[in-house]
């Protein structure tokens, strides 16, 4: 009697219900694997598109890369007649305008964000933020339009007075014709300020009240609380918004080309006209006679893409290290 149980092992009998393992055919019929495959394909198609993008940029710039190598980045000549192309004036212009734009936008943007997060009553803050975020929705070409017909005439009127005071500085020398690095930087600053304000305000509001209360308990003024406790706590988000703005400013095309003057030269004065990578591509791409010319422009596109990628990677790296600090703190 006792031995029967041991000598006949139990064989699992397939039963309808939830306690059996599903074969992959079953899963396929139920649609889960199909959906997984479809969404997998969708997600990875993005990777495919990006790889294709890099490959096209690489292949279609080969003539220029082989002809100039790394010197391309540091040569200043842009001579389509003789087939000599150097990217330095454009790289210089891109860097100068973006950095100056950030130099203007960061204090103003951060200041506004602090005001809206700490000082303004919540309803006013929400309303104003909504309006400022609308600025972010304005397309680049409209900034260019306003830049040409409003900003440049205004700047041209005031620049002589400005130069009387600051004209001894090399960066403010030379006749001002309206189209210049300076005008482009101001337009770019206006374009990136909404990002800085919007994101910084959000992260400032998200700072836990305990941080503020702790400072206040130590007898700090409201400004000291803000500047020494709240803002440092939120610095990760603020840095993120700055990197985002930098990436945006580097790639901006239309507004810049309409107000920068489009001259391939390197100039220490901000009053002089200049050129950026994005602007030269937009202006000369459909008109590049000759393959080398076209490939040189595409190589510029590759450079811009690489710079954007590096900034992206740096931003992520920074976020990671900052997170580490936060966790430790």
């Amino acid at each position, binding site marked *: 009697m006792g031995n029967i149980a041991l000598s006949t092992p139990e064989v699992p009998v397939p039963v309808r219900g939830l306690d059996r393992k599903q074969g992959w055919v079953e899963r396929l019929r139920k649609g889960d694997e199909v*959906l997984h495959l479809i969404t997998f394909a969708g997600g990875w198609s993005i990777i495919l598109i990006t790889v294709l993008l890099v490959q096209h940029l690489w292949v279609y710039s080969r003539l220029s890369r082989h002809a100039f190598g790394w010197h391309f980045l540091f040569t200043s000549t842009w001579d389509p007649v003789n087939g000599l192309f150097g990217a330095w004036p454009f790289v210089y212009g891109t860097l100068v305008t973006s950095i100056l734009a950030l130099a203007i936008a960061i204090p103003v943007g951060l*200041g506004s964000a602090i005001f809206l997060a700490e000082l303004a009553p919540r309803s006013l803050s929400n309303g104003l933020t909504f*309006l400022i975020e609308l600025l972010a929705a*304005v397309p*680049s070409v409209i900034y260019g339009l306003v830049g040409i017909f409003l900003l440049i005439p205004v700047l041209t009127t005031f620049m002589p007075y400005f130069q009387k005071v600051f004209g001894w500085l090399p960066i403010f020398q030379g006749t001002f014709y309206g189209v210049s690095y300076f005008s482009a930087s101001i337009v770019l600053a206006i374009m990136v300020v909404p990002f800085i304000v919007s994101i910084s305000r959000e992260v400032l509001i998200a700072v836990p009240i305990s941080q503020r209360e702790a400072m206040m308990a130590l007898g700090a*003024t409201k400004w000291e609380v803000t500047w020494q406790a709240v803002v440092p706590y939120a610095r990760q988000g603020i840095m993120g918004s700055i990197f985002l703005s930098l990436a945006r400013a580097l790639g901006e095309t239309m507004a810049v080309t309409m107000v920068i003057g489009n001259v391939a030269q390197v100039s220490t004065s901000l009053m002089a006209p200049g050129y950026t990578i994005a602007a030269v591509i937009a202006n000369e791409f459909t008109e590049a006679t000759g393959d080398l010319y076209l490939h040189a422009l595409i190589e510029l596109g590759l450079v811009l893409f690489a710079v954007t990628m590096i900034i992206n990677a740096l931003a992520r790296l920074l976020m990671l290290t900052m997170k580490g600090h936060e966790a430790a703190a």
Partner: protein
Amino acid sequence: MSKKYPSFSRRFKNYLMFTLTGICTLLVVSVLFTILAYLLWHGAHALNLNFFTKLPAPVGQAGGGVVNAIIGTLKLLVFASLIGVPIGLIGGIYLSEFAGGWSGFAVRYTTDLLNGVPSVVMGIFVYTLVVLPMHHFSTFAGGVALGIMMIPIALRSTEDFLRAVPRSLREGGLALGASKSETIFTIVIPAAIYGILTGVMLDIARVAGETAPLLFTAFGNQFDSPGWLQPTSSLPVVIYNYAISPYDEWHQQAWAAGFVLLSGLLAISILARVVLARGGKVSHG
């Protein structure tokens, strides 16, 4: 005699700094108002029936319009949505429901990368990818360029809103015997639909104003563009060309076109937020 606490210098600094921040805010808001007011003023002036119904007249002749640009922009946006929205949606579902570890990381990283690609570089890519092999500038190429630009934002917002759907809803579906795909389609997505829709609308508003990629893909057209395979005019390109031209008449039309474009974009943005607020039961706040 006890000193006032905190010290005068600290109190002064307090008022000073906050006043400065107030000035910053004032600066930003006044810039916004100036731009909008200027656009409104000049744009509204130039709006007339001709503007909306006529094709461009030859230079020097009055009475032209930009109807082909308005239709061109609409066509481009329709096409771009057909490309960008499905891929973004499907990718978003992948990241939120299926993706694990490194696969999810790869897709997310690449999406961020694609998002950061400057629009003019995207224009180069689609020129070499579509225009050269096709031997033609076309609405199709323009739509592809704008569509690819739409993918990252559509994907990000879909993923965000799907993730925000509480686990309890999903588990409820599974507990009732539904398969994973059934749960996703009948429970999770409908719960997040308002947010996803908002994301798509804001996405469309963002690419509607893009000019640079269209310069090398859709090119331009002074007439209507029949079908999808011919070059087409579009509002942003018209604004650019007319703004840098020397003709006063074209400047007027540039303002009017800017006004129309911006009004459209702002309307979509505001509508999107309204939709989000209305359907905000399960969406993230």
